[in-house]
């Protein structure tokens, strides 16, 4: 039956709890299926008995006689109802215990050698930070794309910079609320390399629906390469177009909100753009990161995500093209 269900389109994918990619999602899926099958069977049995009773009376085609108390029928009815209540209580306990076991198993992954990642919810994007208390110069900041080594326990430490958000990557784990002024922890593990999508699961305002992120699980070697690349400052622009693009960036409102390490742009209001071209999506999982989308996003983000924090940036076409060339050089 489970094989049959998984054949249905929509049961496999990058954003579904029915395609677990980690041990906790697997536990959650087991409980989900246990409860699903118990409730399905109970529903079918109850409806069948009900239909049987209705149809039998209907087939007789006569008005039922006034109810008479017959001690033998009465005793039988008491037994049937009593055992049905007993089965119900047992099934409820089975589901409750299963739920307890799942909660316990999903909670005890915590490990002192786990990789730590800080996640900050913003309206309407995700700030990702790889903290390093011993070597603060090795802190990596990125946005909307979480890279993790596969098969390693990862401790996600989350809070919000404004309103309540909820971090939810259904293939990996359940939801975890991100509350302003309070840290919540979520320990996860991803079994195998791949990309999964997550989304904000707590209504947080106008663009709540366009607040997604990707979790990219890689081999340890690939992860280290990515991490070391992220540690570097932004690469120097090579072409005259990109050099002019950097001037445009630093002389327009861009630098009031964004950081590009290695330049004078150092604000933390918007996402860190030091390696923005290395990310697969822009605008918090809304658009694929390509030249057209990037140009449209810079020119008028309000036409794509109305109400988002990025103002429209009307500028000369040459300036815009050069700016995009520079942003695309930030690998």
């Amino acid at each position: 039956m489970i094989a049959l269900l998984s054949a249905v389109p929509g049961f496999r994918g990058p954003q579904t709890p029915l395609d677990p990619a980690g041990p906790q999602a697997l536990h959650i899926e087991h409980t989900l299926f246990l409860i699903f099958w118990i409730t399905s069977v109970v529903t079918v049995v109850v409806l069948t008995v009900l239909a049987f009773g209705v149809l039998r009376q209907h087939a007789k085609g006569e008005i039922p006689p006034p109810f008479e108390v017959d001690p033998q029928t009465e005793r039988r009815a008491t037994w049937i109802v009593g055992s049905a209540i007993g089965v119900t209580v047992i099934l409820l306990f089975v589901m409750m215990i299963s739920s307890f076991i799942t909660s316990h198993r999903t909670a005890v992954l915590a490990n002192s050698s786990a990789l730590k990642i800080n996640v900050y919810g913003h309206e309407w994007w995700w700030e990702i930070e790889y903290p390093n208390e011993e070597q603060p110069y090795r802190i990596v900041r990125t946005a909307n794309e979480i890279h993790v080594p596969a098969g390693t326990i990862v401790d996600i430490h989350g809070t919000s910079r404004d309103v309540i958000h909820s971090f939810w990557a259904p293939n990996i784990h359940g939801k975890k609320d991100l509350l302003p002024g309070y840290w919540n922890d979520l320990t996860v593990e991803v079994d195998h390399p791949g990309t999964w999508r997550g989304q904000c699961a707590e209504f947080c305002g106008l663009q709540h629906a366009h607040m997604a992120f990707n979790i990219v699980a890689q081999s340890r070697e690939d992860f280290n390469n990515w991490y070391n690349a992220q540690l570097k400052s932004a690469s120097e622009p090579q072409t005259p177009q990109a050099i002019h693009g950097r001037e445009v960036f630093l002389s327009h409102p861009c630098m009031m909100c964004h950081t590009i390490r290695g330049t004078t742009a150092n604000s933390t209001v918007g996402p860190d753009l030091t390696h923005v071209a290395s990310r697969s999506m822009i605008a918090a999982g809304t658009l694929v990161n390509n030249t057209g989308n990037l140009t449209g996003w810079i020119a008028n983000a309000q036409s794509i995500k109305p109400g988002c924090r990025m103002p429209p940036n009307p500028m000369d076409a040459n300036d815009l093209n050069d700016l995009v060339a520079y942003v695309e050089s930030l690998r």
Partner: protein
Amino acid sequence: MTTSWKPGFVLLLIFSTGCKREHRVFDPGVAGATPANGTILNEVSAGQRPAQGAPLAYQQSAYTVAEGKRLYQAYNCVGCHAQGGGAIGPALMDAEWIYGSSLEQIHSTIVQGRPNGMPSFAGKIPDYQVWEIAAYVRSMSGLLPSDVAPSRSDHMPASVPEAAKEKEHPEQENQQPVEGPKP
């Protein structure tokens, strides 16, 4: 018969005044989104009313004033003016205005900068956002209607909400004379 529609009409009028309060314009158009640097600097005395009329809608919408409050922190106005109490820069919650208390005057103060520390934000902030910040600055001394001024803070409140601020009455503002170009 002739009087029956009047109460409804009056109610409609009352309600329609509330409409602008929640009016939201996400895309202000090219003119509004162009970085503000159009305020003309000439030999006028500092703080004098700029030529163009102020878009008053910015101080009639609770949304734009709340946006102004957010931008006031995002663009680090708090770095010098604190939450209106002033620190390196002058306080913004009192009745004292060196360069004028009108929306246009605050706008040009932000765009042009002022002597002794206030930097010019010309070319750095979209024009519509400067108007939003200017509207918020006015709300800090109770110069906006209390239904428009922010009534709560998104963060730990540092002071009473702007909606509850008592209205300050700026005195007759003496424009500071600026010396003309030396021969």
